[in-house]
């Protein structure tokens, strides 16, 4: 992990009385897929916002590909190579699906034809091609989540931050998305940092898992390792149940 693509070093964020993120460190290697998990309110989305420049950390630093991007604006983070999705989706409702993705593609090129071509490729990869001409506001929620991903991908990020993009999908759709992301990462060397409540996706996709609880990192490691960690079981299932679990 020495030559990490994204390195988060001891970041913290406090909201009034609440320590939302408390001295959290982790790293994502080039081409790696890392999941950030934890119960509601653990600080996952805040961590995302800190990395993507939507919030400024109170302490710590964020290094992307050797460059310190701590405290930069969201558009600067994007230009540095961070592509993000929003948990509460934010489509450009009046624009078509294709135009939505073209907005992202315009980061890499000012040429409309090239942006259009790049957007098409991404729509096809994510199975949104047949909706390309529809206004984004007509999409269903799972489709909007895919559009979020497509738009972020179109900026050609070095690392993609996925904030619960599988929520509300059917199991078969989840498997499709998992396959799409795994292929993408393998074929293009794209690194992915994701938060997800759908454990099926987390276990299938991630190489490495970081567990947050009350803003602190309580554990990290390979998926099978984390799934057996008593502290993780405790924060997910509660004290008594974890103790009762045979073999835990």
């Amino acid at each position, binding site marked *: 992990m020495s030559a990490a693509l994204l390195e988060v070093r001891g970041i913290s964020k406090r909201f009034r009385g609440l320590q939302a993120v408390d001295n959290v460190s982790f790293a994502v290697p080039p081409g790696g897929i890392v999941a950030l998990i934890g119960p509601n309110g653990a600080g996952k989305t805040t961590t995302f916002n800190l990395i993507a420049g*939507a919030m400024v950390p109170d302490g710590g630093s964020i290094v992307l590909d050797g460059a310190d991007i701590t405290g930069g*604006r969201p*558009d600067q983070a*994007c230009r540095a190579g961070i592509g993000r999705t929003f948990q509460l989706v934010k489509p450009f409702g009046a*624009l078509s699906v294709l135009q939505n993705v073209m907005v992202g593609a315009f980061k890499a090129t*000012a040429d409309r034809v090239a942006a259009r071509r790049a957007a098409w490729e991404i729509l096809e990869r994510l199975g949104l091609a047949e909706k390309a001409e529809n206004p984004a506001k007509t999409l269903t929620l799972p489709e909007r989540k895919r559009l979020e991903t497509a738009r972020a991908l179109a900026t050609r990020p070095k690392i993609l931050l996925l904030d619960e993009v599988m929520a509300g999908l059917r199991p078969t759709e989840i498997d499709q998305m998992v396959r799409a992301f795994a292929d993408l990462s393998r074929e293009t060397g794209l690194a992915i940092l994701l938060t997800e409540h759908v454990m099926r996706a987390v276990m299938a996709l991630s190489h490495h898992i970081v567990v947050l609880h009350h803003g602190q990192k309580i554990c990290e490691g390979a998926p099978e390792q984390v799934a057996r960690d008593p502290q993780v079981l405790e924060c997910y299932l509660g004290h008594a149940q974890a103790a009762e679990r045979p073999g835990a």
Partner: protein
Amino acid sequence: MRASRALGLSPRAAAALGLFLAVMLLLPFLVNAYIVSVLVVVLFAAYFGQSWNIMTGFAGQLSLGHALYVGLGAYTSAALFVHFGLTPWLGMIAGMAVAALAGSAIAALSFRFRVGGVYFALLTIAFAEFTRILFDHFGWVGATEGLFLPVANLAHDDPVRLRGSPVMFYYLLLVLSLAALVLSHSLLDRRVGYYWQAIREDEEAARALGIDVFRYKIAAMALSAAMTALGGTLLAFYDNNLYPDTVFAMGRSIEIIIAPIIGGLGTLFGPIVGAFLLTGLGETMTNLSTYFEISGLKQWFYGAALLAIVALQPSGLWPWLSRALGLWERRR
């Protein structure tokens, strides 16, 4: 054919636009002087609406004080002409620069301090109003007494000095409105147009896609202000007299925004359609109101039209009209 493709029109829409242009070109030969003067008012409304539409329709930043830029363009070029004999075409450029600067400064001030939405709109009114009061006391440009351009009775129109008949202004405005149409279309088709629309739809998402929102908003404001000021110069040389209380009037700011809203906010043809319908019928109302001695019929009509559109066709007349006529509108 190439021109129609450049505008992204279907053959049917290109034919409709061609027909409309042909009619507009011939119209001054077919109608009397009064109708020409009404058409000049229509074209002013269309052009100012197109200019405002770039900022509010495309980039989503509500300005309720565009009379400010009309006034800055009008006063700058008129004062330079009266005092130094500077040709209005250079004065026009100076006016555009002044307006662009003022617009950028207002935008920079507002957006730096995160003044957005309704509060930004209020700020645009405030700047227009206090500029009006400032000009009321600005002796060099006549203050409340007004600034007058010498009326020369020329045998021929003199486009170089912008002295001439309403027909000359009619054609100038027609060219200007057409240029604004081509420019708007070309902007929407480029990265800047996509970015403006993204900002209009969701600023936070736009930012996450690498868009420097602050810069693009200022660019929209500066361009919109400069275009409006250009129209202001024509207005000054058409009217030949300028009073702060009419040039910078709040009522003018409101009239500028009604046509694009009725016609279709953010669309290419909305401001033009809105101007024809509204100003055309509005002028009729003014006449009826004089004839029947009922005051304010035009204002009643504007209010009713606005209510009807908001209630029945909130995206404006043009999207509906283009569908009804089988024309193709790219957006919305």
